[in-house]
């Protein structure tokens, strides 16, 4: 093939390639506009939307509504006695207060969930106002910047520590929250029965839902989780 002809073919391929790319970007872009959304219905994705979920950009207010809807099913009838959750208060504590708390306790936190939440690491027990440290603490805020939920997780290899904490904390929450329900025994013997043995307490108050769980995750590891969630208006 002559040199000039080769150059012409290369040019054609490049032009076709660039044209195809532009067309693809254009179609995909148009499909994500209000007018072109029907195109997404031809794709095999749940709900007929963008298979990557890029068409579902939720505002903080929308997320609050979704969270409230999910939690509304768990709403109890008795108002919670106290909205205190660790060193915080649901519905009151704001980001500035958490920033002051983390600074005072030397706790490192980072923004997660597109700015809606903070993830803190290695929190000493005293900073949480409880007897157990936490490897991880997740704090989620509502659209107005108030604490909507908080979740502490701690792993350990001693089932007695997990069981003792769960038992004592459960008794304290019985008085601090509202009447709760229990599943499994909060004893070391019960947790060591086998992998995925679990003790659990849940409190479904009118305005707060709290969970306390110790799980044998196998391989000699026990995870203690304690979470509090404000139940807003759905």
């Amino acid at each position, binding site marked *: 093939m002559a040199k000039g002809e080769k150059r012409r073919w290369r040019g054609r391929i490049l032009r076709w390639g660039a044209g195809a790319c532009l067309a693809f970007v254009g179609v995909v872009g148009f499909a994500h506009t209000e007018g072109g959304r029907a195109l997404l219905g031809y794709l095999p994705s749940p709900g007929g939307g963008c298979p990557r979920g890029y068409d579902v950009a939720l505002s903080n207010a929308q997320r609050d509504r979704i969270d409230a809807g999910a939690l509304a099913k768990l709403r109890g009838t008795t108002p919670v006695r106290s909205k205190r959750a660790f060193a915080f208060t649901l519905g009151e504590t704001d980001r500035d207060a958490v920033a002051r708390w983390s600074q005072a306790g030397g706790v*490192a936190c980072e923004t997660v969930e597109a700015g809606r939440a903070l993830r803190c690491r290695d929190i000493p027990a005293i900073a949480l106002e409880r007897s157990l440290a936490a490897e991880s603490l997740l704090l989620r805020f509502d659209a107005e910047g108030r604490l909507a939920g908080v979740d502490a997780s701690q792993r350990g290899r001693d089932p007695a520590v997990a069981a003792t904490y769960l038992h004592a904390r459960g008794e304290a929450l019985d008085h601090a929250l509202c009447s709760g329900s229990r599943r499994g025994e909060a004893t070391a013997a019960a947790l060591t029965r086998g992998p995925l043995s679990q003790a659990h307490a849940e409190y479904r108050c009118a305005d707060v839902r709290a969970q306390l769980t110790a799980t044998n995750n196998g391989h000699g590891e026990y995870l203690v989780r304690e979470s509090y969630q404000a139940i807003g208006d759905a």
Partner: protein
Amino acid sequence: MPTKIRVPASLFLITCLLPLACGDSGDTTDASTDATTDATTDASTTDGTDTTAGSESEGDACMVDICMLYGAAVPMVASEITDRAANDMQFMDDFAPLVAEGQAAVDAFKASLANFISDAYGCSTDLYTGPTMQEAHAGLGITQMEYDAFLGLIVGVLTDAGVPQDHINDCFAPTLTNPDFAATIIGQ
């Protein structure tokens, strides 16, 4: 306080499970029916998705046929796992986009999850047609703690569904706590 924004590692749930919804939204009633008949067959999907990573160790202590006993309940369990994840502090943010898409999307997700569970326990073959676990979790940096928290959620569902403690310990735990299976999700 640092305010670095990063991709939430807890996205594991949505990326572990949501892609399943893209793969198969078939009738889960069929899945549970198959569960009682295909108990001994291997369940690697045609696209190379090995959904039986943990099944080899299952059965040593398990003295019951879990497919026979629980196969019909798999769609209900998958539905409950999804609902609980959607209101769990650690996972609800990941599920919000799915919930926002409406009940049809949530139902399709539940159906696909049921297929995955059925295949994972060897109760069916090739019902799940989504991506491999490695593909679904690539780049997410899922931690062991997040994985463990999700296991805790599953235990709650199984217990409330009436599964005896012995069956959870001996029949369900081997697959879920199998390091080889966990490694397909954690740290990808």
